């Protein structure tokens, strides 16, 4: 059993996402920062389709009844058990030992994975939480006192001390032009890939809102079309929104560019007031920055 003591502002159970249901209007949900999430699972010795916890607003504190391998990832995230443990590093938590996940003022999403993983049933093929429609086996934010059953774990000492290098958060995300770039003036597309945007505080798991140079788009209405995470929508008024894990499956705003999956975390973890720029990469890859 994993016992939650301090739940942070909003902690949810997530797995890599609820796929195969987009045609029924169901968003993928899953982690806002897929790279950090996958690293946490890997470090804790979990399978790629296991679940972990996404936390907004640290600290997050918990205990496990038996010995478990634990890892916390995200931007500027670290752990404290008997002593401080750096983030992106696996550690052995003793039975009943208090584990504290901490961050900095720049941390937006933290991930904590525990060997064995939360043993919860899948809903529509996934353990991911989509709060807007109360979807998932735990369709609410975690609360103090919550007890999560854990899967079997043969956590051994040798699993501790592994480290994964975190990505370079902040600054630049790689994106591919389109799919609606041809509907924008050439200057708008060029400007999108050259100017620096400022992250607005209204950003959430659905999307990151940006302020910056206006990007005049098409004057005629666009027919609603399907959407993927990373899509950069430009509503009338020209302030772009980068769609994240909880994005709606369809939308009617033109999409000037789409952030590649490996850099979704860089977008998701950009804190309010920080700067963000988009580096244009060629479809088909390899996706080296210019």
């Amino acid at each position, binding site marked *: 059993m994993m016992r939650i003591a301090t739940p942070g502002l909003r902690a949810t159970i997530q797995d890599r996402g609820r*796929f195969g249901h987009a045609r029924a209007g169901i968003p993928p949900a899953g982690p806002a920062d897929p790279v950090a999430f996958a690293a946490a699972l890997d470090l804790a010795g979990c399978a790629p389709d296991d679940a972990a916890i996404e936390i907004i607003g640290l600290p997050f504190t918990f205990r496990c009844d038996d010995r478990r391998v634990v890892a916390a990832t995200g931007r500027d995230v670290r752990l404290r058990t008997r002593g401080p443990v750096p983030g992106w590093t696996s550690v052995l938590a003793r039975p009943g030992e208090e584990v504290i996940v901490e961050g900095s003022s720049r941390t937006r999403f933290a991930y904590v994975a525990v060997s064995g993983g939360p043993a919860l049933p899948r809903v529509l093929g996934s353990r991911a939480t989509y709060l807007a*429609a109360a979807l998932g086996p735990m369709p609410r934010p975690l609360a103090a006192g919550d007890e999560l059953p854990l899967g079997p774990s043969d956590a051994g000492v040798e699993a501790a001390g592994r480290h994964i290098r975190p990505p370079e958060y902040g600054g630049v995300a790689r994106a591919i032009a*389109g799919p609606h770039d041809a509907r924008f003036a050439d200057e708008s597309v060029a400007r999108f890939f050259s100017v620096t945007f400022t992250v607005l505080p209204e950003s959430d798991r659905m999307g990151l809102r940006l302020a910056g140079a206006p990007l005049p788009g098409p004057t005629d209405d666009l027919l609603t*079309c399907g959407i993927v995470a990373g899509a950069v929508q430009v509503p009338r008024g020209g302030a772009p929104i980068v769609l994240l894990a909880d994005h709606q499956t369809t939308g009617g705003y033109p999409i000037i560019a789409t952030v590649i999956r490996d850099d979704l975390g860089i977008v998701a973890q950009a804190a309010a007031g920080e700067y963000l720029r988009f580096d244009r990469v060629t479809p088909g*890859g390899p996706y080296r920055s210019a």
Partner: protein
Amino acid sequence: MSVRPFGDRAFLIELEQRIDLPIIDTARSIADEWERRGLGDTIPAYASVVLEFDPARTSWKDAAVVAEALAAEPPGATAAAAGRLIEIPTIYDGPDLAETAARSGLAVPELVALHSGREYRAFFLGFMPGLAYCGMLDPQIDAPRLAAPRARVPAGTVAVANGQTIVYPVDSPGGWRLIGRTELKTFDPAREPAALIRAGDRLRFVSR
């Protein structure tokens, strides 16, 4: 028609820029074929379809070749695409019913008769879990979207806007005109499939 990259693991095929049943069916047939080949998830809409793929299994180039081929020669709607008939028992007492009737130059019973008097097609699902865009409304029903969307519309609300009609599947914000409600659950995660309405289904609202 165009095939455009949509990030590093999807393509967007755009067929046209208008709402027309044969185009909707074509978009869905492309989606069905992509999924039948096991390439990944799809999101068909009015006149476009998103085709997702996993670069770890299918190279960008291979996926692009299939997307281009399907766009150039869509498989076409199959007999199975005819869809089921779904009846939606509806109580017509929505807060926008009287105003929508008045602006259409209709008495309320006339609007109810028009709304419940024809069969609609479910074009596609999107925006929120289980929401099916259905049409077309009788052109006498004048229903632009509300200038100020409501912060919360209860699940089960029957609404109209811009020639189309929907049932809100979950409590959510909404800018459509609310004309009635149904007890039918159009989205239930405990059910398989969770969404009651599938794209291609035929719908009839039955006044209660």
